[in-house]
């Protein structure tokens, strides 16, 4: 039997960037096939070619052994290919039925089409265990259920081959497990699943085979049963990497950051953080685990002074912070520095040369220039030195910030904050969109900083990262802190329950 999907010698360039070089991929029918690779390795480009967003410069696509031309997503859908995007393509104010119908309304009046959709959804629910309230408004559904609607949409359009792009990025561990159960049952019904991810754990848990991409090339395809996470990591990066950083037992010192009953309301008046209280001591890393959107971002921003808390008290190194001085500028002066969650929107200015991004937040420091004028030569020399220390590639201070890869941008931001000797460091998503090699470097830096006596508050949606780095872990759900555990005395299941707000069972 011919494979469900065959990609033969696919090439695709964007300007000077060769995103896919002679890529071959063969996916057997009725299997779950993982595609892994670092950011920018060409996974998304490859899948976009398969789904008709881009056309390959050269190469051939075969579906079930037949060569076909996929020029648009419509061609892909006709060929039985469905895609679930990382960012859902749903209309939130519409119901589940209406979303599934979208683009397949079947005539000028909706009534007839709607009946068909309802019947078909009922059948899908029965066959695959895809239970869902078809009249619910999509915007009211949890993220996990919204993803289910996306899958239903694809199946309704007759997808035999389902592509999922980083499907677990927005899910709790429990929701991810439910998704995997669903994928297994799809597989049993003979569907083919392509899973794009950078989480090796998921690859090991659910795929039958896995293909590894590196710098636009397909470097290996292996049976999952015959490989291991370290081997996959090595294939992705091209050299050996440590997936877990070594760290010694810490000896926490004086409390440097104390937060008491902090509550934060966002611009729409929604309560985002409710009564958060905790302490971070010198020489410890406190991690905040939680599914994205549960108030961690707002908590970090409130502590950094980027938004005003509505209630609560903040104490830095024993000093009460008055409301009037609670702004980013003063907080920096007090030694509270901040590596923000979103590098590109907040942490640097993509359009600026790197040496200008490297003083963001510090442009008023007297030694950076004479009077009102900044000394560019000095800024460039300063950054050149840091780039060497932090192994930023390319080491070009004049290069536009947006031209660096995610990992190198993050190193520029980290260097900027760390080199100013923080007492307290807030770190948001330090390795989001960062390649594995740089992750190792960043993790080591943070541990070294901890060992030097800095109090670090870490927010990350990667549970592995939280568990790896933290000494203590706080879990957040719906704006509340739902639990606190020592990192050495907890496990993923327990944290998963706490992150879902199920406190009793975890206790």
């Amino acid at each position, binding site marked *: 039997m011919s494979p469900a999907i065959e990609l033969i010698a696919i090439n695709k360039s*964007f300007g*000077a*960037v060769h995103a896919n070089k002679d890529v071959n991929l063969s996916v057997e029918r009725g299997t779950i096939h993982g595609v892994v690779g670092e950011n920018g390795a060409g996974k998304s480009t490859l899948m976009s070619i398969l789904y008709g967003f881009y056309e390959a410069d050269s190469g051939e696509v075969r579906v079930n052994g037949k060569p076909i031309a996929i020029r648009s997503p419509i061609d892909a859908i006709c060929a039985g290919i469905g895609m679930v995007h990382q960012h859902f393509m749903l209309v939130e104010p519409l119901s589940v039925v209406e979303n599934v119908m979208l683009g397949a309304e079947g005539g000028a009046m909706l009534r007839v089409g709607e009946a068909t959709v309802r019947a078909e959804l009922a059948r899908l629910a029965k066959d695959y265990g895809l239970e869902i309230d078809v009249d619910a408004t999509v915007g009211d559904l949890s993220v996990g259920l919204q993803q289910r609607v996306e899958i239903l949409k694809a199946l309704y359009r007759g997808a035999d081959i389902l592509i999922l792009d980083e499907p677990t990025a927005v899910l709790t561990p429990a929701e991810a497990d439910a998704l995997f159960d669903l994928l297994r049952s799809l597989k049993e019904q003979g569907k083919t699943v392509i899973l794009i991810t950078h989480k090796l754990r998921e690859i090991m848990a659910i795929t039958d085979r896995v293909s590894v991409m590196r710098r636009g090339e397909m470097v290996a395809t292996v049976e999952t049963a015959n490989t291991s996470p370290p081997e996959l990591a090595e294939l992705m990066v091209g050299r050996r990497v440590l997936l877990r950083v070594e760290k010694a037992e810490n000896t926490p010192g004086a409390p440097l950051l104390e937060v008491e009953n902090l509550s934060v309301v966002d611009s729409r008046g929604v309560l985002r953080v409710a009564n958060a209280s905790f302490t971070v001591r010198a020489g410890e890393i406190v991690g905040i685990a939680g599914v994205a959107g549960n108030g961690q971002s707002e908590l970090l921003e409130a502590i950094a002074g980027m938004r005003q808390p509505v209630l609560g008290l903040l104490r830095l190194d024993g000093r009460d912070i008055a409301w009037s001085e609670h702004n980013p500028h003063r907080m920096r002066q007090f030694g509270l520095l901040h590596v923000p969650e979103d590098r590109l929107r*907040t942490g640097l*200015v993509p359009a600026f040369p790197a040496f200008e991004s490297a*003083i963001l937040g510090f442009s008023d420091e007297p030694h950076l220039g004479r009077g*009102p004028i*900044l000394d560019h030569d000095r800024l460039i020399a300063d950054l050149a030195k840091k780039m060497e220390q932090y192994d930023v590639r390319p080491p070009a201070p004049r290069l536009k910030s947006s031209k660096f890869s995610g990992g190198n941008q993050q190193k520029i931001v980290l260097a900027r904050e760390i080199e100013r000797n923080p007492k307290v460091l807030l770190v948001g998503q330090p390795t989001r969109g960062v390649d594995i090699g740089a992750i190792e470097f960043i993790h080591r830096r943070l541990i070294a900083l901890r060992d030097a006596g800095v109090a670090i508050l870490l927010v990350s949606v990667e549970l592995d990262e939280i568990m790896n780095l933290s000494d203590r872990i706080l879990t957040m759900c719906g704006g509340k802190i739902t639990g606190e555990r020592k990192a050495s005395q907890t496990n993923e299941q327990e944290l998963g329950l706490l992150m879902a707000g199920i406190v009793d069972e975890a206790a």
Partner: protein
Amino acid sequence: MSAPLDLPKWADTILVPAISVVAAFLVAGLVVLAIGENPLTATRWLLLGSLGTGEGLGFTLFYMTDFIFVGLAVAVAYHAGLFNIGGEGQATLAGLGIALVLNNLTFLPGFLLIPLGILGAAAFGALWAAIPGYLQAKRGSHIVITTIMFNWLASVLIVYLLVNVLREPQSMNPETRAFPEQAQIPFMHDVFAAIGIEIPHSQLNLTLVLALAAAYCVWLLIYRSRLGYAIRVVGSNPSAAIYAGISPARIIIIAMVLSGALAGGLAVNELMGYQHRLLLEFTSGYGFVGIAVALMGRAHPVGIILASLLFGILYQGGAELAFEQPAITRDMVVVIGGIIILFAGALDGLFRRLVAHLFARQKLARA
């Protein structure tokens, strides 16, 4: 995904605008052909009238002075992410500031009057821009809407004042009395005559030097100073500004104040340098030309100077052309200006993409 628009700096700042201008002239040539005139003769008159004679060159540089100021005004606001359409109104108010200062402080020694007049222009222009700036920063009223409305307010206000308050009682013209002679910025031909060099007479005056100095200061401000850094952060990444502890509201107001002050330079050139009195509609719509100049000059002072020269040529040469070839009216010249704005501003991205594509190809071929 669009192709990455990576261009060498020279291509970005010189080549692409040059292509735009050439394309604009080609299209304008077609328009001239369509009304039955010879585009080549028209081009000859255009260039001859603006650059071919000393007098013509003087007028070209006079217009260029106007355009540099309003172009810089638009550019400074643009760097803070603001589209200041209010150059007309700000320059009008600056004219009022000049008249109030010069005609009321006549008891002061002459050497103080010129700087005070310039300061008056800057202050009134700044104030007129500060109000929309404040409304944008604190109330979220869109700057484009408010500055347009402030243009109308300024034009109505100045008519009222000139007709009812500032007009000399015995005069029928809605204009103030002439500024004191020592408050008039010297004409370039007088300056050169003083050092023994004879140049043709024109409206060109020393304000040109002020304009070039302003361009240098704007460059220093935007690209080298701490304040300019903050302005650019706010303009290109507001959430990064909040993270950095830069108050966008404060920067928006400051940028508008600077922008309005620069727009005041138009009034300095026209009134203190040439008309020597405040009169109606001395801005002649140049405030709007500033938008085209800033767009074409990519909001960089050097680009703005070059774009101002181009528009100076167009205005002066156009006037000569309309005179020499009556079939091509002044309105036609406005059309040609419009085509250039269209190509340099709106269609700029088109050529940029094209050139970027060619560069990328060339790179690949070499690789």
